[in-house]
Structure formats: structure tokens, C-alpha cells
């Protein structure tokens, strides 16, 4: 089993969610996050003064999938989240040892 974590632009959340569901991957956890990548944020002007803003609002999307479909899921997310401009984000996966579904007590891939 794999935990896929995606950092994406907030306005791309709906597109990514729909693409995953269309690909048969259900269930996800979404949280609001802030961060920066290689270009170290951007400069904004407010009330006549310029500020370097490096913690840009992002969405962190987490989904646990079977190892067999992990690569497909990563590609679905990356394709849906892409705008082609700076700040599109990252997607990565890590191994998951165990999962249990709280209501039924099912475990392993059954619980996903």
C-alpha cells in the first residue's frame, strides 16, 4: 500500500478530485497548507510597500491506494493539477505498513 501526498494549487483541487474519482480511486484527505518550492515565493505590493511572500497557500491532498495502482494515481493527479506555470506543486508516495477501517475493523487492502 502506498500513501500518495500531493501539494497542488488550491484552484486545481476540484479537477484533481474529479480525475481521481473518474479513475476509480475513492477517498481522500485534504488540508490547507502553505509552503514554497524552488523559486522561493513571490513579491507582492500592498499599500505602496513591496513584500517578499514565501509561504504561498497550497492544498495538501493525501490518498492511500493499493501498490498496484499507485503509479497510475500519481499520473492522474499530476495531469489534473498541471497548469504549466510556476508553483504547480509536487506529488510523491511513501509505503504504508498497515491500515484499519474504524467502523468494520477490516484491515490491509480491504480497508482502503
Amino acid at each position: 500500500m502506498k500513501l500518495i501526498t500531493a501539494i497542488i494549487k488550491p484552484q486545481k483541487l476540484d479537477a484533481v478530485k474529479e480525475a481521481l474519482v473518474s479513475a476509480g480511486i475513492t477517498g481522500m484527505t485534504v488540508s490547507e497548507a502553505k509552503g514554497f518550492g524552488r523559486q522561493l515565493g513571490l513579491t507582492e505590493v500592498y499599500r505602496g510597500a513591496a513584500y517578499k511572500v514565501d509561504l504561498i497557500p497550497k492544498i495538501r491532498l493525501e490518498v492511500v491506494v493499493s501498490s498496484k495502482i499507485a503509479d497510475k494515481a500519481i499520473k492522474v493527479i499530476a495531469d489534473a493539477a498541471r497548469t504549466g506555470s510556476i508553483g504547480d506543486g509536487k506529488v510523491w508516495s511513501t509505503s504504508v505498513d498497515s491500515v484499519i477501517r474504524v467502523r468494520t475493523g477490516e484491515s490491509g487492502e480491504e480497508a482502503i
Partner: protein
Amino acid sequence: MTEIVLNTGDTAWVLASTALVLLMTPGLALFYGGMVRAKSVLNMMLMSMVTIGIVSVLWVIYGFKLAFGYEANSQWYGEFSLSGLGSAVNELTNNGGDYPIPLLAFAAFQLMFAIITPALISGAIADRTKFTAWAVFVTIWVTVVYFPVAHWVFAFGNKVGDTVTGAGFLAARGVQDFAGGTAVHINAGAAGLAMAIILGRRVGWRRESMRPHSLPLVLIGAGLLWFGWFGFNAGSALGANGTAALALLNTQVATAAAALGWLLVEKIRDGHPTSLGVASGAVAGLVAITPACAFVAPWAAVMIGLIAGILCALAVGLKYLFNFDDSLDVVGVHLVGGLWGCLSLGFFGSSAINSLGLDGLFYGGGATLLGKQAFGAFFVLAYSFIVTLIIGFAIDKTMGLRVKEEAEVSGIDYDQHAETGYELTTSSRGGFSS
């Protein structure tokens, strides 16, 4: 000599104006409260609210007499005595002449000016001032700065026949300030500058943008200030008459023009007209027209407002140039706007508009009025700045002015008041019953 009889129309207008001017201070609390970050909204608003409490009490004890007493016959202060308002219930107002309104109506109206002036200073010291230190500061500052300066500017003395006793220093010299450009706005702006310097910059200043947490609150506050300001300016006629109507109309058009001027600067310079800009522009216009509102023609009020909006939009950048953290632009709006408003009379003043006024440069009056206005403006600026520096320094060295750094970073609201402005959570904070 005919006896002066109370005029119910005049009295009704001054009483209504008194309530309008009071509303400006809660309006200011919203204006300032929306501009700070969410973690310090309550402290910001409470600084205004506690000022209403402190100054009102001081006013009935001794403040009114210190500002408007005339028996000491001093141009620098009123009287060192109790206000004694209880024994003045049947007296009418005499301030450089008779007004057919109760003395108590005048006393209550002037109290509202004494409240908002120190409250204005709080914008310069946002997010970092110990609340008890603020309360002590307000008590000392109104006593040694506001009450005497109000005497200089607003006390025209007790006039019986041709004899005037106890007229204020600037009033007697013919400095024109209809509703408080010097005593209120330059005074508060200079004090704000002094306090911002004494307190030092906030943690993260210039590094973080410290955007306003609620611009809708700022706009509600600006709206209430605008509304209340009709009492401030038109009420200063102390009667329901043509002067009040002129002041009211000029207040409206100057404010409107200033809001447009500020937006114009933002659109040209930054590309975005902002809601903070329209609110700040309106206040800048209100400030600038305050001293001039009863002495200029409406077209001149539009010019004064438009220039105020443009000038103040540029002046709020001064703090970055000189590195002082005047958090909510008390200097850029009130000091600069107040200075412009006072000096503007030297150009636009017209004796045809108001027979009590003098002609400015544009009406063939030469530079005499401009010279008087500059003298009055800079005299108040210097006094307020220097005395506020001394008060601020003394409080800082004794009880301390500033909260601990960790309290400032985590939020002054919870540290000083054990409250937070917004509890927007559905999850438990945890804990056990005890």
C-alpha cells in the same frame, strides 16, 4: 442689553451632534480593529473603548475646567479647579460670545472631542502596547496635552461686552481651526509619531506584510466615522444655522473627493484600487476639511479633499523611509492630513463665505492667514511631539510600555485580555472538568 434665551433648535442640533461625535470612537475602534491582524483585534478596539471611560470621568472631575475655564484668565490653560458641572445646570454657553445653548450641552459636545483625540493615537502603537500602560498614558496625556491644547484652540474666552477673559493662545492670535485640525488631528498625529518611536517596531515589521484581517470591519468603521463627522464639523457651529449647513456640505464633498484621490494614486501606482485605500482616503478627507469646513466654498472643499487624498496616500510611505512603525498610519493620515487642512485655509479661506474668516492667498488676502495657520499647526505639532516623547519615555522606564515578545507574536489579545476575537472552530480545546 437683551437677555439671551435658550434656543431649542440650536440645542437640539448640538445634543444630536454630541451623540454623533461619540459614535466616531466606536467607529474608530472598528476602523482600526479591522486593520490589525486577527490576533490583536480586541486589544485594538479596547484601546478606544477604555479611552471613552477614562476621559469621560476625568472630564467631569477637572477636564472641562482645565480646557474651558476662564477665571484664571490664562491663554495656556483654563482653570485648576473641579469642573463643577452640577452647579451649571441653568447656565448658557459663552465661548467668545453668547450661544443660546446650555453650558452642559457644550461641555458634553467638547467631551467627545477629548475622547477621540487620544483614541486616534492608538493606531500608531498597534499589536504591542501593554493595556495598563495605555490606560496610564491616556490619563496623563489628556491632562497635560489635550486639555491645555484644547484651551489654546477652542477656548475663545468669556466675552461680556467687549471684555474677553481666558481666551486660548492660538484662538486669540486668530489661528483658524473650525473643528480641530490642530487640537485633534495634528495633536494626535504628532503624539502617534512620538509613541511609535518610543515603542519601537513590531516583530516582523517590513518582513511580513501584516495585512488587515477584516476589511469589511474597516469599511464599517470608516462609514461610522464619516457619519459621525457631520456632528464633529457641523456641530462645531454650536447652532442649527447656515454655518452648520456649510460645514456639513463641505465635509461631504471633501471626503468624497479624498476617497477618489486615494484610489487614483493606488490605481496608477500599484494597479489596484483597494478597499483599505477608499477607507483611508475618506478619513484623510475628513481630517483635512475639519479645520476649514466653515471657512471655504464647496469647490474649495473638493480641492482640499482631493489633494488630501493624494497627499496622504503618498505620505503613508514615509514610515518606510524613516523606519518607524506607525502601524495604522496615524502620521500619514492625521498628521499630514491635519497639516494640509490647516494650511489649506491660508489659500482657500474666504471672508465672503464666512464673515468671521479671513481671505487666503487665492482671495487676495496675501500670506497673513497662511502664516498664522502655519504657526498654529507647527506650534501644536512641536508641543504634542515633545511632551508625548517625555510621557512615553517615563512610562516605559517605570511600568514598561510593551508586552513581552512572545505575547506579541502569539497574540496580544489572549495575553492581555484572555480573549480571542474569533473562535471559529468546531473541535474541542480539550481539558477535564474540575
